[in-house]
């Protein structure tokens, strides 16, 4: 192999970056800080909505007066009122909770499934690997949204928990496939062989040596998955089979606003911007993490 003697120039800075500490590299990226700051505000909205919703003096999203239906901004209500006469700012602040909850919960479910199945396929024998890989292929074989529609439609109860479970159960295959590859490459490493030679059991080897070293690419993908799940949740809610009415969510606010978008487009603006901003910041953070931690991305 004559090629082997000539190292590709792209791989050198990557190796050095890892040694210098990828976190330090990340700290020098302005986009990461901007995204983190915006996301921090949205997380604060989700954790303690009341003080933020009350900034303009009317913080109760359920204090609605039909006489105010679809009015534009008024004193104390800078973003105006929605169709039911509720304050749009308060509703949008409270909406952060369900989006982030579904995003995190569904991703946690997918991630757990992906790590378990990926590790099984990567470390298990041929039969286990074959079975898990075929199941993964089946789940990859149909569009995610279509499957979620079919299941959520048949489910009677739709709340943050059920929507998260459905999205989590369909969201794992990509991560599992990545996990399997990652586990396979780590399992070949010398330190795993050394551990095996020392007589450690498979369970211990997997827990102490393989998983910690194999999980990083999957965690990077999981960050992006949070964004994708939030998009999926809002889309399903918009279609009418995600979260439903007593819940406060951006998807519901947009769905209600889209029916009157010709006469009062202002109803749509704030929830749409908040939703897009949340997904954008999460994906931006995910991309920044990936470009720092994943050497192949650095060009």
């Amino acid at each position, binding site marked *: 192999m004559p090629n082997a003697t000539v190292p590709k120039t792209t791989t050198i800075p990557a190796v050095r970056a890892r040694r210098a500490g990828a976190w330090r590299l990340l700290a020098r990226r302005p986009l990461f800080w901007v995204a983190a700051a915006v996301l921090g505000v949205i997380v604060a909205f989700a954790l303690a909505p009341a003080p933020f919703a009350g900034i303009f003096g009317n913080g109760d999203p359920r204090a609605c007066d039909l006489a105010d239906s679809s009015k534009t901004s008024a004193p104390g209500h800078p973003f105006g009122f929605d169709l039911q006469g509720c304050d749009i700012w308060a509703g949008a602040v409270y909406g952060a909770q369900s989006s982030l909850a579904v995003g995190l919960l569904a991703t946690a479910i997918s991630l757990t499934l992906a790590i378990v199945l990926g590790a099984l396929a990567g470390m298990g024998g041929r039969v286990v690997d074959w079975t898990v890989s075929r199941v993964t292929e089946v789940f990859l074989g*149909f569009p995610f949204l279509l499957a979620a529609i079919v299941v959520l439609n048949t489910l009677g109860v739709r709340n943050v928990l059920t929507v998260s479970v459905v999205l989590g159960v369909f969201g794992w295959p990509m991560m599992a496939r990545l996990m399997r590859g990652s586990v396979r490459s780590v399992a070949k490493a010398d330190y795993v062989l050394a551990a095996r030679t020392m007589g450690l059991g498979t369970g211990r080897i997997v827990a102490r040596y393989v998983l910690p070293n194999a999980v990083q690419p999957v965690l990077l993908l999981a960050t992006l998955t949070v964004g994708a799940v939030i998009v999926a949740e809002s889309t399903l809610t918009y279609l009418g089979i995600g979260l439903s009415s007593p819940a406060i969510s951006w998807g519901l606010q947009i769905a209600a606003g889209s029916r009157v978008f010709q006469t009062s487009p202002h109803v749509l603006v704030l929830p749409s911007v908040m939703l897009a901003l949340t997904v954008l910041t999460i994906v931006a953070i995910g991309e920044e993490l990936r470009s720092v931690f994943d050497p192949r991305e650095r060009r």
Partner: protein
Amino acid sequence: MRLFLTILQRFAGFALVFVGVTFIIYLTVFSLPGDAVRALAGDRQLPQSVIDAINARYLLDQPLWVQYTNYLGNLLRGDLGVDLTGRSVADQLATRWPVTITLALTAWTIQLVLGLAIGIVSALKRGTVIDRGLLVVTIALSCIPVFVLGITAQIVFGVRLDWLPVAGIRDGWPVSYLLPALVIALFGLASVSRLVRGSMIDNLEADYVRTARAKGIGESRVVGLHVMRNSLIPTATFLATDLGFLLGGAVVIEGIFNLPGVGNLLFSAIRNHEATLVVGISTALIVIFLLTSLVVDALHALLDPRIRRA
């Protein structure tokens, strides 16, 4: 012979995924709560004899596997079943396919043209502000939920500027399809342009490009002929798989823009608990998705001898 074996292997994979997917959908539709017969009746009470008759007619009282094998057998004969009012699913789909296919192909063309252009420009200008800017914009566009993008496009281009129709297909192709197709295309644009960029960069650094430059061939010829041709193989694969996803993604967009396509039908079927209709449409969409991947895999093996050995 090896090529034949590869294609046979792909076909076995296709069959497995096909059975798995149809079974999962069938299982979720029928094992989860929700009574189709009662949904058909609405608020009225049906006499027990009618319920029994409907159950017997549609095998609803049989065990799941009997229903499933019966369904699969019909499917292999090209029969997608009938809905609970007795209309054939395949017939209902037939009138709606042209709209969805037109929409998907229009979106696909827009995505191809924009993706190639953005990918080539960012590969040639890699590392510059232009490259970074294009990356950020395409990723940002793919993050915004399709329905937000769709409604925004309706307000801006349909209502305010009045350039294109807000909804419906009264103005025919291409005017009525441009806006929805653009929205669908923008969603997957980041993936296409990144893929084009990545494979262009790989090829720009390859030895044969250096050789071509050393021979004194002009830059435009190097890029246009040598790099492009080799960069297009992975892109072609992605775009073909993408066509399947465009068909599926049409559900939301057809609803927003009120296009009478398959996606629209699927959505109303879901709302009415028309289980057979939902399964029929989903299956049809998935079969199309799987068939495109199968054809692409086979073409891929024909085009690139390296893949045949894998």
